[in-house]
């Protein structure tokens, strides 16, 4: 049997709105993922450190404060610095379309915006992780 998908969920920055991330955490749990929720006000360093320690497949962050163009790149930089670039970074929040495109170009695997069903995020992770594992086998 395949190993369970492990996901770290985090709230970076100062934003305290945690309704969305808790809904995602519950949906992931019910989909059979192992979920680690860090809680609020995590710095990029704290998030990446926890992801490495927990040996997760993916990091999901939720940002509703408008600081996404600062926080996502900071997490990506920290991942590079800690050689954790193989972890999938995805996220969601109040994020305008133009910013979403730019973030996905920078290396955020996927940005979900309001109204996206949790099923979309679940399918996205399953597929992305499966694709990555089959790539690794070929290599």
């Amino acid at each position, binding site marked *: 049997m395949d190993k369970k998908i492990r996901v770290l969920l985090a709230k970076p920055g*100062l*934003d305290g*709105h945690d309704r969305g991330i808790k809904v995602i955490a519950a949906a992931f749990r019910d989909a059979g993922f192992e979920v680690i929720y860090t809680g609020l006000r995590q710095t990029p360093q704290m998030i990446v450190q926890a992801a490495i320690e927990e040996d997760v497949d993916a990091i999901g962050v939720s940002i509703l404060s408008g600081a996404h163009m600062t926080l996502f790149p900071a997490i990506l930089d920290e991942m590079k610095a800690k050689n954790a670039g193989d972890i999938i970074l995805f996220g969601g929040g*109040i994020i305008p379309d133009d910013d979403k495109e730019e973030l996905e170009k920078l290396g955020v695997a996927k940005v979900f915006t309001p*109204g996206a069903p949790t099923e979309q995020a679940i399918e996205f992770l399953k597929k992305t992780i499966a694709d990555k594992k089959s790539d690794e086998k070929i290599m």
Partner: protein
Amino acid sequence: MFSSKFLDKLKGRLADWNKTAEKFRQKKSMPRFFTVSGVDIDELYTPLNIEKYADDEHYWNEIGLPGEYPYTRGVHHTMYRTRLWTMRQFAGMGTPSQTNERFHYILKQGGTGLSTAFDLPTLMGYDSDHPRSLGEVGKCGVAVDTLADMEIIFDGIDLAEVSTSMTINSPASMLLAMYIAVAEKKGIPSEKLRGTLQNDILKEYIAQKEFIFPPRPSIRLITDMMEYCTKKVPQWNTISISGYHIREAGATAVQELAYTLADGFQYIESAIEAGQDVDEFAPRLSFFFNAHSDFFEEIAKYRAARRIYAKRMKNKYGAKNPKSWLLRFHTQTAGCSLTAQQPENNITRTAIQALSAVLGGTQSLHTNAMDETLALPSEKAALIALRTQQVIAYETGVANTVDPLAGSYFVEALTDKMEEEAEKIFQEIEERDGVLECIEQGYFQRELAKSAYAHQTELETNERVIVGVNKYVMDGEELEIPVLRIDRAVEQEQVEFTKKIRAERDQGRAEQAMARLREVARGEGNTFEAILECSRAYCSVGEMCDILREEWGEYSESASAMQVS
């Protein structure tokens, strides 16, 4: 209301009616008939649902007349016929001067009150140049570091005329102190200032999570401020006890009602314990509710809130001044009900929600802009939101009479139901040793997460329909709404300005004021007076909060509060 002879006859007629109705029940337009909060609704309401009001005493104890105990029908005798609700649009973004511009625009367009949104660093008590503020300055509200910023925000605005609401909680004392200090510089005595401070820390622990200090010292900040305002700023609403954020975090209408009132009663008990007289401070307490999409449930919620509050204030806390019995409230339409899909539909949602607040007897109202799931509102979207209120006020006729839905079998029965359900939750909170214990044990937080997930599950299984999201979806939708962006230069500009103010102020005075704040925080005395002196001396929000962080520690959520459901 109804004679027993009449009710007997009605029962007979209903039995016949039911036989015919049964034929139509074979088909259903919806799988289930329930409120947005999950309360099941009956097919029909009749005088039998409000039978108990036939009893004279019961009628006067539960419904009565507007402007009289128990205020179910409203807090004023004549309501909107004398004065319409205050149209108070929440605004704030970027630098203080940008917010000042938006305020002048709102007043010019007929807005009748101001409402200030602060950015996250301000809400969390960090200055704009703090490392944790990076990327957040001016983003979801205006940045305020020192008195100099407040002077700019309110430049050219007559503080003796306008009423100002400030959405700030952990550092609420600091921002009110700065407002008073701005007024002093303009020569306006604090006795003339009118407005509202949100200052509701309990709902921060429960829902919005913008907390700095632990609950008990936070409550001290609040009671000190209340004491000061009772004496020196008598027209100021010192706390706006807020259900809005509790609802946004996932609560049902019943949970919003019960948790909010429970928070209110906690503040009242704390002030009484601190030796204050309930009739001195209670008249300045006000509430803030959400207006969600379930039209009648919301109306019933507001009516029930007034009734529960009046009963408790009179009977449990022994308030004698009728002004202490009044639950006055502001309403904001539900941000969480807005959709990013086909966002123009949000105008319709907001209009209907606003109508429920008006029919529920609100004292002031904010209507959301259609683009708020995308970014801060653009000027056009904010204007449509204000116009929505004006259409309700002047065109629909709903303001012509007081509490027009009273006596509706359904509305009265639902009002009773809301009260009954809220009482069950009060009981549960009591069994768990009160609000502060419930916060520390994560009870509210877990209940909200459960409700939020249940709501999401209903959407994904199509048990609940949201137009444009899970029904009538348009593929390949192109957004045609302009999105407001906060220039990245705002942050740099603000950081430099604050550094300049810190360098140019009278250091001796600032140091002395801060030393006094530390001494008071550590020991006895009124923290608000010390904070006011710090504000006059141009000490920053961050400097003041740092002192209190050092003395009182910082709050973080327990593992049980972080559980997902």
